[in-house]
């Protein structure tokens, strides 16, 4: 490929292939380890389709996906929102979508960003490694779609839809946080499903055995059996294994939703890092292309235009400034790691003695592999980035008429700002902590859940509706206590 002076803005499959080869070469020179790539050229409508299914190339049917589709289309067609330039999914091969209306510069940027940036992150980051199986996801989705279609013909579309409604309601709490699930293939999944179906029903029946096993024990005082022995935070898992009313096929559906929730679980915890990493690499690779005289000035100007639009961080008093742009924060932090390694100041040496002067490629690779947003910010957010972004902390205590600035980007505030920012990406901050604590085994079979308030935050208004969904899965009455930090019951819900 020679320099594309006067290169047309329009791309062809050939020019995309050429760019991909060059980008792959550069990425390899920076030791980016990726899954093999699959680039799919799609139209805007197909992009909206892809949005609705969160990027997965295949999915089961449910009205809520239709709702997301219509929402996106409405927003896009009325001009309220542009479509993302790219969408990439964590699979092997790694599938990235290129939109047909993108210019050549944009396509090159998307390839560098998604197919080499995100791709290497998916392959290297510990959360993705531990929680997802890139090679199995597409097969699993095929299995899920087929299984649900089978259920629909056998048990009725409405029954499946109602069940999925309830499962989706608990999706955010259908995640195993502390054990790694095994990675089966589609075929294994199918055979194991049949076995599971029989076995599961058996176990549940044991738990709910009502006929006393021998007559003698009846006379002895019943020892109260605590169940579950430990509180369970994976509500879908709990329902799948222990619900007294679910049919075997319903347990399988619960499991499917749970598996998909698990697959997306790392994504929301690594938004800043993942985007920062991908932006850093598209930025680096584009510059390398220019340095090697493979692209012209016009190409670069267009690149800067797109790049700066994506990475803009509005101030707190501008529209959109109420939240941090994960692209901007991530890119600033990633770039800063490189800077600290190559040209550390006295301040950097004080804050990051281990980084200053070390090999920047190795340092970044280490950061990418071993952190999630919460820990990454706590570990790497430097005073310089805080000053550049002019970060400050604003304390908002419900009931007080005024908000208070508690820390700003100065020597006294760096650590506090960093801590608070890190905490805002923690799991507790993103989702309320709700767990199953008790089942009344020998009485009315009621289920008791506990919510531990984080920073005194109550549950949202639709909690009552949510409880109805839990009741649908459980079959008997459900109680939820919302506890303050010191363990007092602040509010009780019951259905």
């Amino acid at each position, binding site marked *: 490929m020679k320099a594309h002076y006067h290169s047309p803005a329009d791309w062809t499959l050939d020019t995309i292939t050429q760019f991909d080869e060059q980008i792959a070469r550069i990425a390899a020179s920076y030791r980016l380890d990726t899954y093999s790539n699959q680039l799919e050229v799609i139209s805007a409508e197909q992009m909206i389709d892809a949005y609705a299914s969160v990027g997965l190339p295949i999915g089961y049917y*449910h009205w809520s996906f239709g709702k997301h589709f219509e929402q996106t289309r409405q927003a896009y067609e009325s001009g309220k929102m542009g479509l993302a330039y790219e969408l990439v999914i964590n699979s092997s091969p790694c599938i990235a979508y290129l939109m047909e209306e993108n210019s050549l510069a944009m396509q090159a940027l998307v390839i560098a960003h998604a197919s080499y940036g995100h791709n290497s992150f998916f392959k290297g980051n510990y959360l993705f490694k531990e929680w997802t199986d890139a090679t199995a996801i597409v097969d699993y989705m095929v299995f899920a779609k087929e299984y649900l279609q089978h259920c629909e013909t056998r048990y009725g579309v409405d029954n499946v839809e109602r069940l999925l409604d309830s499962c989706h309601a608990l999706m955010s709490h259908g995640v195993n946080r502390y054990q790694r699930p095994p990675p089966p293939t589609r075929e294994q999944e199918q055979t194991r499903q049949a076995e599971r179906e029989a076995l599961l029903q058996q176990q549940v029946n044991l738990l709910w055995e009502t006929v006393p096993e021998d007559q003698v024990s009846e006379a002895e005082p019943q020892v109260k059996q605590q169940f579950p022995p430990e509180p369970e935070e994976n509500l879908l898992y709990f329902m799948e294994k222990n619900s007294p009313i679910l049919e075997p096929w319903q347990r399988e559906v619960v499991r499917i939703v749970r598996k998909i929730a698990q697959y997306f679980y790392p994504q929301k915890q690594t938004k800043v890092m993942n985007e920062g990493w991908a932006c850093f690499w598209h930025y680096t690779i584009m510059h390398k292309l220019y340095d090697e005289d493979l692209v012209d000035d016009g190409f670069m100007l267009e690149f800067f235009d797109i790049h700066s639009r994506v990475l803009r961080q509005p101030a707190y008093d501008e529209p959109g400034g109420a939240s941090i742009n994960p692209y901007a924060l991530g890119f600033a932090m990633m770039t800063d790691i490189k800077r600290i390694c190559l040209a550390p100041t006295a301040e950097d040496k004080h804050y990051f003695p281990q980084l200053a002067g070390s090999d920047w490629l190795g340092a970044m690779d280490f950061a990418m592999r071993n952190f999630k947003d919460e820990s990454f910010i706590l570990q790497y957010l430097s005073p310089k980035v805080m000053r550049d972004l002019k970060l400050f902390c604003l304390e908002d205590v419900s009931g007080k008429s*005024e908000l208070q600035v508690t820390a700003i980007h100065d020597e006294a505030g760096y650590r506090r700002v960093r801590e608070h920012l890190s905490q*805002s990406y923690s799991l507790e901050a993103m989702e309320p902590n709700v767990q199953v604590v008790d089942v009344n085994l020998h009485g009315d079979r009621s289920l008791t859940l506990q919510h531990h308030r984080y920073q005194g935050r*109550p549950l949202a208004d639709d909690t009552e509706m949510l409880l109805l969904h839990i009741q649908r899965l459980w079959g008997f009455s459900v109680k939820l206590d919302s506890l303050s930090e010191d363990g007092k019951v602040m509010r009780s819900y019951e259905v």
Partner: protein
Amino acid sequence: MTHIIDRRLNSKDKSSVNRQRLLKRYHRQVKEAVEKAATDRAITDLDKGGEVSIDKADIREPRFRHGRGGRHTHVLPGNKHFNVGDKIPRPKPGAGGSGSGQASKDGEGEDDFTFNITRDEYLDYLFDGLALPNLVKENLKNADEFSTHQAGFSSQGSPEKLNVVRTLRQSQARRIALRGRYKKRMQELEDQLQAATDVDERLRLQKQLDALKAKSRAQPFLDQVDLRYNNLVKVPKPSNAAVMFCVMDVSGSMTQAIKDIAKRYFLLLYLFLHRQYENTDIVFISHHTKAQEVDDETFFYARETGGTIVSTALHLTLDIIAARYPVDKWNIYVAQASDGDNWEDDNGRCGELMQGLLPKCQYFTYVEIGGREHQSLWRHYEQLMAQHEQRFAMRSIDNVSEIYPVFHELFARKGVA
């Protein structure tokens, strides 16, 4: 290694099933929205697809989420002048200011969920459950329209109806059957030939055998008896040709508002017929003291006006039926709209004409518009009601919002509410 796949030619409708499920789930809400649109829209926009809104509370998917309240420490970008200890009055909820990070985070305001449906979907919802009553003529005796059906095969027919497969099957069966007879005899002769030693005897046998072989070979490939023809029979077809007479009063007593209601009513009818019954004729008649047949453009947009003699319109309808729509072939429908104002001495005449017209019609609807006290025309029509209950219906419309419900009532499919 990178694979590049061009998916642009793949189906664009990956979400269509999900979308259909959405529409099905919210069928009631969408239908309400469409019916509301039928009332609210400008008359020229009546047949377009468009936005449908569903209350957000109905369509919300609940999740465990943090509600408002508690303690938050927001980390915000772009500090300009704040210092530690500064206090800021709490911004009003929803103002989108700096402090309301929580409000904008979940991204869901209290607006309705709005999305687009196509024109086809819109009309489907609008005319869901409606049908022309008594569409098929009970009396088939005079029907001279036929459809042809395949009814087995016959041994006679014209060459173009020859059924090749059947014919060849016959031919093959015949040849097998006829050759079988010779075959047996030939086998016998051959056995004798083997056994015979005398030369003359052998010659005689050989000759017989040759003759038989020749006969066997001489079976014709196709014989007259093999030929089979498709047998087609004519079945009298029930007539579903239909004509709708739209009869509208445009007299001076019809105010602009009343005319607007009448036009909306007829437009609904017009769209309905076009949508559900492709081959339906529609005859537009507008009348004041004189009735005339007009085209749809004139019917919906003309501004001619005058006094009122209803009978002229009924008369014209009868004339057109006599001239163009023989009763035995056509299902005849009449929809009349008026404010009920008529010359007093014309009402009796109307009654007489109706006695002649009603037996010819499958269904006659009369709507009186205006919300005033019913005039004498209504009372005359009421007397007809008793005799012709099956084919006569009358309703009154007082304001725009009643058009669709009345229309729906008049044309509701029987057995469907």
